């Protein structure tokens, strides 16, 4: 535990990537495989189920520190993080801290707590606090409350393990895809020189696009590029192996039984096939706004009603594995033509065999033809079946033509265009150069800062999470939360403003004198009955502070609604 805490401190303290990798590889070289597996588990953002409510921990800390609650609150206010505050105020017993490996701490001390009574929990936790040093105590509380977070990406952790084990980082990344349980056996397999990688359900690491900055003509000749609409859905790989289907989200979440429409069709794909594409809501041939999709994902049960209201379609754009062969090194143009054959074959197979139990997923013949009309005539595409679509690539002889096409994105219910280099392989992660997302300009709104909340992790001592309001008559109504987009210096300035202009405090939230106007950007804005303002926004971010604007010149709900009207007409 002390060793893991030392790693935490090292990662927490340095700003240099090289230092972080050095600390990680030293750690993974030092510790036993089971502890390494748990460390990897926590560092890559996994959590234990919360063992004890944080309110109780707070109360126990107040008791053992023998201070009054208000004084604890003052400490918390100065520190900005509960686990850290507890670790700083609880008394330590003299002498060397007692230690054990990370796996012992997790499996023998943390996890068994759940079976104990509250008073037994209290006694054991207080003993642990006393025997750990301050940083280890902090880590321990964070693990207890399921709030452990360090500023490292999984990629960085993988590079550390690669350094320590000599196994290629890309191989590790692939072996880490999907579900795994931390154990010595798992870690040993992970760093084994040849671990027989054919784990059935494993997807490939996703290839992600970078936003295009500058003009597309910087990319060279347009004929070297494939252009597609960029759909706003759930990026997913669909795997058909060993007569089973697995659907993985980009967040490496296995989305089993969530898309019965897709799973029932996928059985007609031959074994050893992996597709990449975007899952979208689509009804009567029309792409539904993402909010509908969120409703479907958010609903606990897939009721008949939701299946009818928000049917999905899988817009396929890449073929990563075919007949059990990894195609990722092949050029995009080759993968694409192979994909077209796969989809055509799927259509034929599907037409030949239509078992009864699938009837519930079918629309009428009319709907089908309508779908195909739209798919071919508008967005353009070949329909393998209603639920698997292969949207056509966009034909353009010049960048100017593409620019013109892109300006129609909103009409196509697309976010913009994707540009993919025709001779590029399917890469891992977000390398620059081959895939670009070329989104249309976002909506922008001038809004007033009205509430602020402390940040998390790195920024726990600063007010970084803001709520913005717009005018409804002469009242400012909250309509969006945003936290990204400001520089550290700007954040510090706004933090100071917030502390000096607080009207009221509600726990971690402060209401702020309305005075600062910010320009916010959104990927999308929709009418919503679930939001107080009647408006739902997607991906809000702060573009800049409008120091030139008094709050009276901030936007109003009416102007935003008008903007929506303009967009949908």
């Amino acid at each position, binding site marked *: 535990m002390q060793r893991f805490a030392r790693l935490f401190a090292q990662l*927490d303290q340095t700003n240099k990537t090289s230092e972080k990798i050095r600390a990680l590889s030293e750690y993974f070289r030092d510790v036993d495989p089971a502890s390494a597996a748990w460390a990897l588990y926590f560092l890559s953002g996994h959590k234990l189920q919360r063992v004890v409510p944080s309110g109780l921990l707070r109360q126990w800390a107040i008791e053992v520190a023998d201070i*009054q609650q208000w004084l604890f609150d003052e400490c918390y206010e100065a520190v900005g993080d509960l686990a850290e505050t507890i670790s700083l105020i609880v008394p330590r017993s003299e002498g060397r801290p007692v230690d054990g490996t990370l796996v012992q701490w997790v499996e023998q001390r943390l996890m068994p707590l759940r079976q104990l009574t509250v008073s037994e929990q209290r006694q054991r936790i207080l003993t642990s606090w006393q025997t750990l040093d301050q940083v280890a105590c902090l880590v321990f509380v964070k693990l207890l409350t399921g709030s452990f977070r360090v500023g490292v990406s999984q990629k960085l952790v993988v590079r550390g393990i690669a350094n320590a084990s000599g196994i290629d980082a890309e191989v590790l990344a692939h072996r880490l895809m999907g579900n795994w349980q931390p154990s010595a056996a798992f870690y040993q397999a992970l760093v084994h020189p040849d671990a027989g990688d054919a784990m059935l359900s494993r997807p490939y690491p996703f290839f992600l696009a970078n936003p295009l900055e500058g003009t597309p003509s910087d990319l060279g000749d347009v004929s070297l590029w494939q252009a597609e609409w960029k759909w706003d859905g759930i990026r997913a790989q669909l795997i058909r192996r060993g007569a089973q289907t697995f659907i993985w989200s980009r967040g490496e979440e296995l989305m089993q039984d969530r898309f019965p429409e897709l799973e029932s069709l996928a059985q007609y794909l031959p074994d050893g096939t992996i597709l990449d594409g975007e899952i979208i809501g689509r009804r009567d041939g029309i792409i539904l706004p993402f909010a509908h999709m969120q409703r479907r994902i958010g609903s606990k049960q897939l009721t008949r009603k939701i299946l009818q209201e928000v049917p999905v379609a899988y817009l396929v754009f890449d073929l990563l594995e075919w007949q059990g062969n990894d195609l990722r090194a092949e050029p995009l143009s080759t993968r694409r033509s192979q994909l077209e054959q796969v989809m055509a074959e799927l259509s034929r197979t599907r037409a030949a065999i239509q078992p009864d139990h699938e009837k519930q997923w079918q629309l009428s013949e009319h709907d089908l033809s309508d779908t195909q009309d739209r798919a071919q005539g508008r967005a353009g595409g070949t329909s393998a079946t209603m639920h698997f679509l292969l949207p056509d690539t966009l034909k353009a002889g010049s960048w100017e033509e593409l620019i013109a096409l892109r300006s129609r994105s909103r009409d196509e219910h697309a976010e913009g265009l994707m540009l993919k280099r025709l001779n590029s392989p399917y890469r891992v992660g977000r390398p620059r150069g081959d895939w670009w997302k070329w989104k249309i300009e976002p909506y922008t709104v001038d809004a007033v800062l009205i509430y602020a909340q402390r940040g998390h992790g790195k920024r726990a001592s600063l007010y970084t999470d803001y709520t913005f309001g717009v005018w409804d008559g002469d009242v400012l109504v909250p309509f969006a939360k945003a936290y990204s987009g400001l520089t550290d210096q700007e954040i510090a300035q706004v*933090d100071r403003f917030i502390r000096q202009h607080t009207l009221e405090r509600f726990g971690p939230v402060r209401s702020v004198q309305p005075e600062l106007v910010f320009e916010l950007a959104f990927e999308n804005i929709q009418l919503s009955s679930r939001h107080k303002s009647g408006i739902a926004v997607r991906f809000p971010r702060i573009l800049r502070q409008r120091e030139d604007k008094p709050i009276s010149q901030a936007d109003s709900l009416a102007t935003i609604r008008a903007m929506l009207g303009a967009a949908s007409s």
Partner: protein
Amino acid sequence: MPILQETPSGLYCEAGDFFVDPWRPVRRAVVTHAHSDHARSGCESYLAARSGAAILQMRLGPHARISFVEYGQSLMIRAARVSLHPAGHMTGSAQVRIEVDGEVCVVSGDYKLQPDPTCTPFEPVRCHTFITESTFGLPLYRWEHPQVVMQEVNAWWLDNQRRGAASLLLGYTVGKAQRLLASVDASIGPIYAHGAVISACRAYRACGVALPEIRSVMDTPTKFDWSQALIVAPPSAMGTTWLRRFGDVSTAMASGWMRVRGIRRRRAVDRGFVLSDHVDWSDLMKAISETGAEHIWVTHGYTQQVVRTLQTRGFSARTVATQFKGEAAGEEAEVSDPAAVDDTNEP
């Protein structure tokens, strides 16, 4: 009539017609120590402890008229009996004991109870009214023994040497820098310092404080290999082009504020060493109770929190205003934010 009163220029003793650490020019100033928020130039005459004479003269300039007294030496200033007692904060730092008609009041200035090779240890002084600082007046502030911290500093330096990176250690120019220099294991490698630190070291040596050999960064050839060196510099050096010359460098800061991760990260240093020249929470409580004082005036830091705690423990306690940045605006962020306190303005 209390011995001391709050005035726009600071704490004033009417019986002796003098001020303690005034923040405006006055006729007579008793000064606790040479930090700029306590010792300000422009007064007609000063009284301070002899052991820090050269440092205070450096702060106030060669023409300042300063009378120096030994610790414990008592003198009458009109109707007030005044003596200075070690505060353990930095070389020459003093508590001011004032006695008028059998009533005793002690102004602590800044102080700490932990050992420090550059100064005489803090000495508890019995009194009726104790005026204490509260820079780190929250229970979350708790210091390790300085020996333990210095072991960490030594280990960090050695580790950097092994990796071929220079070790840049940031600490306040006057006080912290010399404490670090006097405590670090000088056998590990060559020690360098920023020009401002070097001038202060000269004054320290004139006060008889033993320091290791310190070389000037400025006098070093441009293509010098810094990888074995320890460089001590003021915090304001961070983020300046001055750092470029060192090549691969690990940065660290020594300060009580380093106990809180968020504050440390905002300083953007690779390492934070928790080493302070002020009392931590438990030493603050200990020092207060050892004075035997019934009335506690709290200044300079987390005043309200300390006052409220003392009141629940049965003391008569109140806050005393300082010109300490931010406090006048009721701005807790500034008080707890070392970014607001640059090195020329050491609290």
